[in-house]
């Protein structure tokens, strides 16, 4: 009984400890300098591996999600004779919720796990300690460009996801279901507000970008430098960041959209 209590306390303190380490990591790597502080070339390279290489999965997923929304929304709306509101349904769902959230989940799986594995392997092969020996700060050199690339790439990916999704929905609505083209776009334009919907969606995706990349680089940097440890850290990244995204999404939605 007492042992169990001790164990529980140990777990609690170690969880708080690692949260503290993660906060220090974020503080030291981001607050020190802007996106270009560790060299512009590094940032470009990271933007390539984090952003450009996630583009195909994001675009394909967005297209299918938009098409499914079109089909499912149609079956419900047609009962009320208001299938012309399909454009509104697809665009608001994508802009406010599915765009930022699904992009963040895919981003955690595609880019977050890769970041963790890469940094974890750097640690295991003692590249990070070698950098320290040479007087190069690994935080600034390795972590900072990756963090900034993730934060910058995420809103762009989410916007592309929503855009592709809306056009996917339009394809299903207009070509397959025979909804009037003008009704689809006209109703959408009448009800979607640029600041209320588009910008708030972008704010969400920026927050998700910060959270997912932060968790990913921390898990890599803090991983146990063995093959097993890296595997565990990679899994942790996907699990923790997915849960964090879904939880934060509720909070952000309640704050930004819940009041009205």
């Amino acid at each position, binding site marked *: 009984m007492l042992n169990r209590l001790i164990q529980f306390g140990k777990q609690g303190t170690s969880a708080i400890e690692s949260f503290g380490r993660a906060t220090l990591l974020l503080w030291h790597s981001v607050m020190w300098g802007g996106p270009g502080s560790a060299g512009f070339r590094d940032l470009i390279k990271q933007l390539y591996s984090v952003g450009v290489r996630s583009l195909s999965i994001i675009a394909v997923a967005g297209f299918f999600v938009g098409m499914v929304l079109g089909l499912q929304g149609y079956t419900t709306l047609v009962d009320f004779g208001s299938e012309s509101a399909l454009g509104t349904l697809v665009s608001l769902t994508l802009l406010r919720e599915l765009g930022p959230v699904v992009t963040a989940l895919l981003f955690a799986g595609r880019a977050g796990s890769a970041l963790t594995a890469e940094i974890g392997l750097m640690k295991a092969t003692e590249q990070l300690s070698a950098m320290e020996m040479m007087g190069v700060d690994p935080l600034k050199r390795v972590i900072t460009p990756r963090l900034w690339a993730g934060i910058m790439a995420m809103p*762009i990916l989410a916007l592309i996801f929503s855009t592709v999704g809306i056009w996917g929905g339009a394809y299903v609505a207009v070509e397959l279901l025979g909804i009037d083209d003008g009704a689809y776009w006209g109703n959408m334009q009448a009800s979607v507000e640029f600041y209320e919907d588009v910008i708030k969606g972008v704010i969400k995706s920026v927050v998700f970008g910060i959270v997912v990349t932060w968790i990913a680089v921390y898990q890599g940097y803090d991983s146990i430098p063995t093959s097993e440890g890296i595997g565990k850290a990679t899994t942790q990244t996907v699990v923790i960041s997915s849960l964090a995204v879904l939880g934060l999404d509720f909070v952000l939605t309640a704050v930004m959209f819940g009041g009205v």
Partner: protein
Amino acid sequence: MRMRFVELSVGIFMVMGVIALVLMAFRVSGLSMDDAGETYTVKARFENLGGLTERAKVAMAGVTIGRVTKVYLDNEWYSAVVEMEINKSMSTLSTDTSAAILTAGLLGEKYIGLTVGAEEEYLEQGDWIEDTQSALVLEELIGRFLFNKAEEG
């Protein structure tokens, strides 16, 4: 060579992001440049709003010319007061313009429909629209109908 490819694709990625944002702004949310133009505010008093909310449309002959900015209850008269912004391009509304709360479609959203009058003078910033017509509340209509039926029978 390799670095050039990386730079090029990151550039394309950034441009795609900007294009997506522009598409969102103009194609999806219907943001247009003259929308943000100058406006003036007029007020109107209604007996019953029947579900009219802030940001509802203000239309004349079916064309949107403004938005409702504020809805509140007047403590003195116990009637609803609606403040609406009307685009400066529609600055020639006569002072006897009438306002009615209408419904888009059978179950659609509420909006304010303006009908122009015949006066020579125009409404200005802060003026009141005197001639108003409240929203049709379905329950009241049904109640009146049943009452009339009962009287007949």
